[in-house]
């Protein structure tokens, strides 16, 4: 008994001692989101030509240790939020939101740590989207552009044209529904907590509505938005969509599309990669612009995620820490690594220096970059963005179960302007 206790205590001491950081080296806590099946392997396993990002970085930058963790999107908000509550945020974080952190003074301005050369390399439009109160607080890590993917063979068989307006979209859906008698869903919609905000954006922006008004104030209950969401609900009601929009995620939609069960879906540019990886080879598809309401201007939808650095007042040497973060970014955006990273999961780059190599590898990137240049982005520079994101998802799901769209959006708006 005593022996066991003694042994146990020794073990405890040993293990706790080993968790103390080793002296002198700067250790950066990095959290990266899991984008695809290869993300973990690329960063920490052997996915980068037999080595990993972390190993390569530490070899190239002696004196800096990376404590890099790849977290799934399901858990990342939990992990980050818990660490912030414990005043122990990561040094570098890769996530989609940033304004709420910035508005509470948790983030460092990008200019504090980002080398000038790299700073100038980012697409200017992306950087403008990362400004809170005139200061850039995050840098984009990658982007994706959305387009309407449609099954060319089905459209030919049914004898319809690619819809450009909502009215045409409804007609096309009805025609597909009539033709295939329910074997094929005409249009895919994802209103899950994964990406319901994207669905809101596709239709709100397609009706000249949106999340904010011209003065950049929240305007989720605009008449245009109400009309857009009522249109969306009409589509679901008429049976033009997949049966469970509230629980069927984009993976499900992409699978249905690949298997020829879905005629149209709005999806990111990574879909071709997905379809090839998954083995859907005999599908003949093409892309088109998102349908919009008659009289409205259509716009494509771009989505970008970000990398940001948190303040850490307890760091002994702030300058050295900033430099280390800068080195991390420089190393990450080095075309040698960055091109590999972006093309691995079929995303679009955020820096100019990567464009050339990417287009060389896959010419279709160029057209996607054009789409991206004309895209609208979420108003993620506003501190309430994460609330709005969940709010619009909630509104859509509530409307699905019979709620009144106008009342729901008014409610959300009231909460935002409170």
């Amino acid at each position, binding site marked *: 008994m005593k022996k066991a206790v003694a042994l146990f205590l020794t073990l405890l001491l040993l293990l*706790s001692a080993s968790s103390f950081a080793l002296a002198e080296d700067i250790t950066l806590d990095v959290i990266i989101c*899991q984008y695809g*099946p290869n993300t973990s392997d690329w960063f920490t*396993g052997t996915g980068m030509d037999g080595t990993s990002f972390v190993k390569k970085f530490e070899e190239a930058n002696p004196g800096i240790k990376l404590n890099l963790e790849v977290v*799934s999107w399901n858990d990342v908000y939990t992990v980050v939020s818990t660490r912030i509550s414990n005043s122990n945020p990561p040094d570098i974080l890769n996530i989609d939101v940033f304004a709420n952190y910035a508005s509470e003074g948790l983030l460092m301005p990008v200019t504090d740590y980002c080398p000038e050369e790299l700073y100038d390399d980012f697409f200017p439009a992306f950087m403008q989207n990362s400004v809170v109160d005139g200061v850039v607080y995050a840098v984009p890590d990658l982007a994706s552009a959305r387009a309407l993917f449609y099954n060319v063979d089905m459209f030919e068989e049914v*004898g319809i044209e690619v819809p450009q307006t909502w009215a045409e979209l409804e007609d096309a859906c*009805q025609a597909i529904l009539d033709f295939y008698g329910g074997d094929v869903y005409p249009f895919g919609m994802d209103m899950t907590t994964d990406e319901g905000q994207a669905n809101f954006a596709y239709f709100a922006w397609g009706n000249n509505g949106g999340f904010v008004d011209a003065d950049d104030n929240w305007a989720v209950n605009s008449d245009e938005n109400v009309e857009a969401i009522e249109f969306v609900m009409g589509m679901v009601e008429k049976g033009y969509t997949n049966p469970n929009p509230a629980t069927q995620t984009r*993976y499900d939609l992409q699978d*249905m599309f690949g298997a020829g069960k879905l005629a149209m879906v709005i999806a990111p540019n990574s879909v071709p990669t997905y379809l090839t*990886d998954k083995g859907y080879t005999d599908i003949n598809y093409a892309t088109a612009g998102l349908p919009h309401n008659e009289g409205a201007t259509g716009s494509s939808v771009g989505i970008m995620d970000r990398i940001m650095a948190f303040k850490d007042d307890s760091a002994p040497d702030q300058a050295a820490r900033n430099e280390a973060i800068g080195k991390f970014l420089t190393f990450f955006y080095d075309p040698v690594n960055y091109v590999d990273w972006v093309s691995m999961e079929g995303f679009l780059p955020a820096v100019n220096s990567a464009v050339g190599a990417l287009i060389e590898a896959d010419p279709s990137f160029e057209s996607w970059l054009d789409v991206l240049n004309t895209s609208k982005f979420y108003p993620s520079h506003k501190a309430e963005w994460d609330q709005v994101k969940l709010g619009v998802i909630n509104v859509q799901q509530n409307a699905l179960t019979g709620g009144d769209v106008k009342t729901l959006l008014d409610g959300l708006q009231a909460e935002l302007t409170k």
Partner: protein
Amino acid sequence: MTRSPAAKRNLHALWLCAAALLVAVVLTFLPALEFSTVVFTKRSGNTFVGDERYLEARAEAEAAAAAFEGAAIHETVIERVNSKGETTSMVTFDVKESTRMTIWQLLASIGGFSLSSVHTAHAFALCVLLAVVLGALSLRGQLACEHRHLPRSTRVLRTCAAWLGLAAMLCVPLFGMSCNYNFTRQVSLYLTEHAELSGQAVPALERLLYSAAPAGELEALLDGMTMTTLWPLWALLPVLFVFLLGLILLCKGEIKPTLARGGLYAFVIVLCVVILYPFFVMLITAFRSNAETTDMYFLHILPTTWVWSNISDIVARGVPRFLLNSILLSTGATAIALVCGIPAAYAMARMQFRGKKSFLGFVIMSQMFAPVVLLVGITQLMNTLRLNDTILGLMFINAAFNQAFAIWLLRGTFVSISSEMEQAACIDGCNSVSALIRILLPMAAPGIVTTLIFVFINAWNEYTISTVLISTPTNKPITVGITQFSSFNMIEWQYLFASALLATIPVVILFMLIEKHLVSGLTSGGVKG
């Protein structure tokens, strides 16, 4: 004329059998199956009656119908006014045929055709026939006899008849199912995959339905064919059940115990099937290819090719390491929980002291917060103790969260063991520590094993706290490790389930080995207030 009670009962049973049999025979002469066959479908979108597209489609449909004698063309026109006020229209041409058949017709018409539904029909007829013959044979001169005085040969005959009756009854649903399976799915799947075989199957199918169907049209024939089972087939089921009851009454003398026994086995089988089902799904999905995990045409139950490399893929992606961490974590947590829990349970079971009830209340209350809620507090604590991102920290957390369970179970076990031996030992000068270790613990072994398992499993299953607490990939337990297979871009079901398989097998084996201990451990007083 007076009859003995046994004779009376046997006669009743006989009447029951005869009546049931009569109804069954009548039923077999009613149509049991309907083949409705859409031999050809042509849909033409954006088509108006009389326009070019329409005529083209119409010609196509007529050409197809010409191949089938007596087949009619059904034309459906859907017209709609679209949002712009234009009229759109879609025309559908269906070439349809339907036939109804009795079981006898089916048996007679396709004697040489080898589909398992026909085998089932044969088996059904054979079983009924044999049951009747055997039952009749067993009746000779034995009608008035008590069943326990029956000669052995008669009993065997009657038992055989009853089993055959059961078999006949089970043939009915099998028949219905295999009809659907063969005709609507299996045949078409099979023939699409083996085009070279259609030459042999066609003549048989022709005889079955369309004596004039030309060879080579098999696929078109099968594509639209649906089979419906009609009510007379299903009515056979209860009728045969009555027949079976009559037979049982004949051979056993009474029905209740047999039925109870049958019900018991039926319940156990259903229970086991339901329980094993998700594990079966896990097993087969673990070896499917990525594309087949989301197969939307439901081609096969089993993987078309067993992708064994899924296992090596997940091994390469760190799953063994996660498993090792989980084992380490669960073992450590169990050890800590027992080391702390046994003394406490001992005190609760053997000693009287103030605050005992409050302690028990405290123990239960400690369970009432979901770990999810406590995340913030736990991480803060771990930072203070420098146990962040260590398996050791997780061990303590899990041990603490399982204290209530451990103490409760162990206390129950200790209470159920008489303290006489310990009291004697104490008089001999042995202190309570050695009394516990030398005397009580060996006797309480089953209860301790049970506790151990409970704590081990709970620690093995813990997910939320580990997610937040562990950031180094090599420290992740399996529950957290497998989240890497559902990423932003794709859920890799096959890897998810392959890892789940690897994670489940050790625990299942462990459980099966100690299942006996488990029950006896609980029995020895484990879970008793």
